[in-house]
């Protein structure tokens, strides 16, 4: 397998407001030395709670957020080392779908122009070819040609997400970053969009970096999964390995928290593992393992020393006491 996207020790720091006028600058490390690999034609899911750094990691990996350190290799080329012009040329290979289909489409533009705009900006093809491509894309995502002249408000949430997908595909990208693409949609509509994404991946050989907090959705779409907690990947590996036998206690807790049709109130279901409290503040991350305060297995070692990621079967786990 060849890696399409490979992040090595990717780190993102945000500068916070100073405590006092002449005080030292305070930094928050939102992503802390994260490494992952996305193979060609596969989907890598990044899961975790809000604030765990899922979106920041993806945005830094495609240079929409500045990284403070590390490398991002896209087809072997370090994106972080490219100059602006070279990066701009690379952008056509990398496109995005956002969470909220209501705010991510220009309300004053006709949808045909919205889908066409990336090609105009990147000067792909002749104007006539672009028009033909817009029609082709509309068919591909399940919209009708007679809807080309309409405005975003004339579409439902699911249809708007289809427009976003068509726009993202217009430049013929290799990588699609999907940031919670279905979490704003009704369940019945979610299934429509998830099926569409699965079909497009197959037909066009796309790779997805797929951010979601919904484990069911991730299991459905992704081939590999990375679980993030407080800016670090705590577990990373093939989907079935993580879902069937998660090794990190945090992954186990996430799975226990996700609602499932198999857990019935009538049977007196009690959650096997409860997570109490909130993650610690990323401004002053704990010295040891970030999850130690909420972990039922935590021991002194966990509070003193951060666990290094190591292989556990098919998985890479950052935990002193996995299993």
């Amino acid at each position, binding site marked *: 397998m060849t890696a399409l996207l490979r992040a090595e020790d990717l780190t993102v720091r945000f500068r916070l407001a100073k405590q006092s006028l002449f005080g030292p600058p305070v930094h928050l490390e939102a992503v802390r030395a994260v490494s992952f690999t996305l193979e060609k034609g596969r989907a890598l899911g990044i899961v975790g*709670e809000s604030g765990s750094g899922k979106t920041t990691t993806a945005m830094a990996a495609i240079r929409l957020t500045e990284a403070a350190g590390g490398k991002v290799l896209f087809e072997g080329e370090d994106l972080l080392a490219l100059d602006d012009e070279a990066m701009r040329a690379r952008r056509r290979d990398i496109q995005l779908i956002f969470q909220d289909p209501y705010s991510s489409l220009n309300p004053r533009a006709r949808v045909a122009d919205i889908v066409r705009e990336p090609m105009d900006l990147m000067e792909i093809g002749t104007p006539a070819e672009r028009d033909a491509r817009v029609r082709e894309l509309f068919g591909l995502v399940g919209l009708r040609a007679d809807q080309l002249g309409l405005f975003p408000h004339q579409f439902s949430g699911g249809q708007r997400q289809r427009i976003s997908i068509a726009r993202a595909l217009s430049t013929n990208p290799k990588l699609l970053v999907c940031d919670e693409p279905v979490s704003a949609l009704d*369940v019945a509509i979610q299934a*429509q969009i*998830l099926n569409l994404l699965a079909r497009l991946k197959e037909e066009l050989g796309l790779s997805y970096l797929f951010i979601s*907090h919904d484990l069911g959705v991730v299991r459905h779409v992704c081939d590999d999964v990375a679980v993030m907690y407080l800016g670090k990947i705590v577990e990373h590996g093939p989907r079935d390995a993580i*879902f069937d036998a998660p090794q990190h206690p945090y992954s186990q807790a996430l799975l226990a*928290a996700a*609602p*499932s049709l198999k857990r*019935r109130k009538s049977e007196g279901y009690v959650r096997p593992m409860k997570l109490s409290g909130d993650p610690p503040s990323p401004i002053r991350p704990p010295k040891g393992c970030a999850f130690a305060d909420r972990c039922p297995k935590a021991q002194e070692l966990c509070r003193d020393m951060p666990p290094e990621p190591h292989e556990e079967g098919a998985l890479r786990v950052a935990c002193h006491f996995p299993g």
Partner: protein
Amino acid sequence: MTALLDINDLRVTFNTRYGEVTALDSVSLNVNAGETLGVVGESGCGKSITALATMGLIPSPPGRIAGGSIKLAGEELTGASDARLRALRGADIAMIFQEPMTSLNPVFTVGDQIAEAIMLHQKVSAAQAFKDAIALLDRVGIPSPAERARDYPHQLSGGMRQRVMIAMAVSCRPKVLIADEPTTALDVTVQAQIFDLLNEIQREFGAAIILITHDMGAISEMADRVAVMYAGRVIEQARADDVLDAPQHPYARGLIDCIPALGKGETELREIPGVVPPLHLLGAGCAFADRCAHKFARCESEKPLLADHGHHPAACHAVEEGRI
């Protein structure tokens, strides 16, 4: 025995620019003390309007309750005076809203807001009410409650805010607690905490809970009974296990099948095509007909009524005629 909350044949209409539109049509629901009723359906199905009607919070005009009855412990709420409804709301029947940030007042501390709810319904001093508020924050699992009571909503995380909402809602030990998508904006881990908390509170206070959600997974974990709503009508109603194991109406089946389950991958999700129709465009037939794979001539001309066709009540001609 009559139920604690008994909604019968409720009809709610709204005046819109398309004329009068029926948002709820012959909705009948009931819930008993200590029981959780799940109300499930997509956006625009009438779940929240049912909750608002029960709270006497339908904005009027343009909305009005055009028929039917809502009885709380035998007392009719539909024609009740504003003063009576105000006395009941918060005390006997309380609601937790979807978005805790927009339903809390940003310029008062959360302790003051809970204390305000207590003082509205109980004759206690401000100091005592604030003490009670701190005890409630402690009860809903907020660490260092005495300090958090002096925080403003923006200083708390989403899960904390929803706990504050729950503390406020249970402050007067209501008989009925309506939770309208209480966890939609929250992480799964926090959602699990909130669900566990609601269950604990129910065991402790014996409250009836109406849980409004679009997630069948949440129904499975929380509900004793389920009502599935579509386009302003209840189209299936039964014990949660019956609906989950043997959904009758194609829409109920669709809602279950379209969930990407944790246990399986790969296979294509069975989607429900199309979207909920706008209420002003509802015709004479079944509102779900356009999205339904089992549609036949009768579905276009005649509205199916909720009735028992052998398993449990469902409103579907195809089920009635044994086609599915």
